[in-house]
């Protein structure tokens, strides 16, 4: 840049930077080749599916592709009164192609989701076209309007116009119990039909409490692990890791055996006289079951980061705290606890994020009141086959996790995380 900065040369007269780059080049290529498989793997299994999910969740090109002429004609229509003749002509010619290809059923289904009643009137129109009842030399508008009275209703045409953009946020709104009203504004669904919002809140609540329970139970265990002599700590470590060696399904099933009304835990309560035999509490197929099973299953994810952090805290720090006059509690609270915060952060974040997307356990022991948003996603994947809605909710979950991560970063700082 400035004339003051003198270029440093090697003994052979080559600029030092050039020489260094040349020398390092081979290493850099080697390093890149080493990580290349992982990068490729990440791209194929992570970046690509998420991108695919995103397009699927907003993709609304089906109708756009099916009714090109209609939407072209609709561009001039203000959408307030019944559309002019050109729109009907366009729709008629689009629809005729669909009828010839026998794909008009899909259009009917899709439009029916936008507004109830489309299915039957498209079928009726199809029959008219098949029977050649439409005379193309006369006004198409009049003839279509005669097919069914709904074709005379401006709301149905407005619904068609709403499907014109190739992309839509409707699925995301649906995930939050909202929808585009007839005039295009965002409206809330009726109160008794707001199931998703309840599920989101329940998911957050259960994830939060599971994290708290895991922390309360995991902290002493991790402390014990870090301070016990090797002989005992190894044994305890195996006990902590044992759940990892057992199938998740088996563990969940064993909780079902333990928690059901005629199960072992209830038998024990009856035996010690805590509850009456004819009044056994329900401990599964509700939130209790979800809490208990998820806490047990996620506990190692809390214990391990905590352990790895506690292991590095010198016992002399606690001793120093005490010898300086702090009571054992003060020494713990002022010295030990602050040093474990990186582990707490890592453990809580890990457990919370895992819990928020948990699926199998709540599906098996959760019942109606203990299922989470991921169960709803799975339901739409498998039962209703509304993959775009499932994708939208999956992405909402992902962005929720990212938001939590961001908040955590603001509060504690990601550099403070220590996973091992």
């Amino acid at each position, binding site marked *: 840049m400035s004339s003051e900065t003198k270029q440093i040369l090697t003994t052979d007269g080559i600029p030092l930077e050039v020489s260094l780059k040349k020398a390092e080049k081979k290493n850099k290529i080697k390093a890149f080749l080493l990580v290349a498989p992982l990068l490729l793997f990440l791209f194929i299994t992570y970046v690509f599916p998420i991108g695919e999910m995103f397009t699927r969740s907003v993709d609304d090109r089906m109708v756009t592709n099916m009714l090109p002429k209609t939407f072209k004609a609709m561009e001039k229509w203000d959408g307030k009164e019944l559309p002019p003749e050109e729109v009907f002509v366009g729709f008629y010619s689009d629809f005729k192609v669909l009828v010839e290809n026998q794909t008009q059923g899909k259009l009917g289904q899709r439009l029916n989701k936008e507004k109830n009643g489309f299915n039957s009137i498209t079928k009726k129109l199809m029959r008219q076209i098949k029977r050649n009842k439409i005379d193309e030399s006369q006004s198409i508008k009049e003839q279509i309007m005669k097919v069914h009275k709904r074709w005379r209703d401006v709301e149905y045409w407005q619904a068609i116009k709403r499907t014109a953009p190739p992309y839509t946020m409707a699925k995301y709104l649906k995930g939050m119990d909202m929808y585009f009203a007839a005039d295009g504004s965002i409206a809330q669904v009726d109160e008794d039909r707001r199931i998703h919002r309840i599920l989101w809140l329940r998911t957050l609540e259960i994830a939060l409490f599971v994290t708290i329970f895991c922390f309360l139970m995991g902290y002493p265990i991790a402390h014990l692990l870090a301070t016990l002599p090797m002989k005992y700590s190894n044994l305890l470590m195996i006990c902590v890791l044992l759940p990892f060696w057992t199938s998740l399904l088996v563990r969940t099933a064993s909780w079902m055996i333990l928690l059901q009304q005629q199960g072992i835990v209830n038998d024990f309560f009856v035996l010690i006289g805590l509850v009456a035999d004819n009044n056994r509490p329900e401990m599964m197929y509700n939130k209790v079951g979800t809490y208990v099973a998820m806490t047990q299953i996620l506990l190692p994810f809390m214990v391990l980061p905590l352990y790895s952090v506690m292991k590095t805290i010198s016992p002399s720090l606690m001793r120093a705290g005490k*010898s300086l006059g702090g009571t054992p509690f003060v020494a713990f609270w002022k010295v030990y606890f602050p040093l474990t915060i990186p582990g707490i952060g890592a453990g809580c974040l890990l457990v919370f994020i895992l819990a928020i997307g948990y699926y199998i356990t709540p599906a098996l022991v959760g019942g109606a009141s203990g299922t989470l948003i991921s169960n709803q996603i799975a339901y739409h994947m498998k039962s209703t086959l509304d993959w775009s809605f499932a994708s939208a909710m999956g992405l909402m979950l992902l962005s929720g996790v990212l938001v939590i991560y961001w908040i955590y970063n603001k509060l504690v700082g990601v550099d403070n995380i220590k996973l091992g």
Partner: protein
Amino acid sequence: MSKNPEFVKFDKVDKSYDGKVLVVKDLQLDIAEGEFITMLGPSGSGKTTCLMMLAGFETPTNGEILLDGKIISNIPPHKRGIGMVFQNYALFPHMTVYENLAFPLRVRKMEKDEIDKKVDKALSMVSLNGFETRMPGQLSGGQQQRVAVARALVFDPAVVLMDEPLGALDKNLRESMQYEIKHIHESIGVTVVYVTHDQSEALTMSNRIAVFNDGKVQQLSNPAELYEKPVNSFVAEFIGENNTFNGEVADISGDECKVKLSNAEIIASAISVKSKGEKTTVSLRPERALIEPSEKMDNMFSGKIEEVIYHGDHTRVRINLLGNPEFILKVPNSTSNLELKVKQDIKIGWNSSDARALDPK
């Protein structure tokens, strides 16, 4: 102010961790007020255990520890008011230097002004003013060490324990810190119990040294006496360099005795030998034996030089003497340098008062 000679008292203290082996055996030790006492010994000799018992982190298996006449065995560490400097400083890594020093004062619920004053005083004692806002991780090893010392002293404890505090420092820094700690001790007059396995550290710093081995105090005396007059062969071996001859007492009369070696007889002071026929190890400091002595000495023998090693300020000469091929001599580097050659025969002499007949090794 009259000093209490039994300010800290270990009274018949035993300590065992597993119920099988005694780590500390029948420890009887009095520490005077304001004294700098060092517990010196090889690792595993029980010295750190003694310190931990005094600090309250270990309980004696038997016996009592008294501080200023009061039994402290049942007082938890935080109520003993004993300052401690740990091996790896144990500074709180998440607190600044100021907060580290203020910790013992805050838990004592002192006023903010007073805390500031005391922290300032303690920091100036270790010449670290201006470092208040630094984190321990931003300090060098020597600075961390000084913060640890300041923290142990800031709440004016009656006793300060130091557990190998200089172990992690390099040689030069360690030496300057030794003087610094010694000067701090002299200026504030606090009682210091210092643990180390480094004998030179012990010799430079302490008023008295307790040499530990095998759970017992082998000798408790001031540095000079410890070096000049070791009472048994362990102490002689452990402190400084040492030449030994193993033999049998041939004759004993008063302070002196004749010790019969395999091929000669030497005269030594009888320290721990009582009667004829006893086995003994005679100890002699390398600097007390002279080459070709001009004056008359009661032990005069000739040996063969095996090795000459130049050390700058002195030359070490290894000699095969009286069947001991490891006999070491230190020849100071002076102008009248002797011609020393390997395989040369040479006359060695020493006084019987410097050769101490101790227990057999």
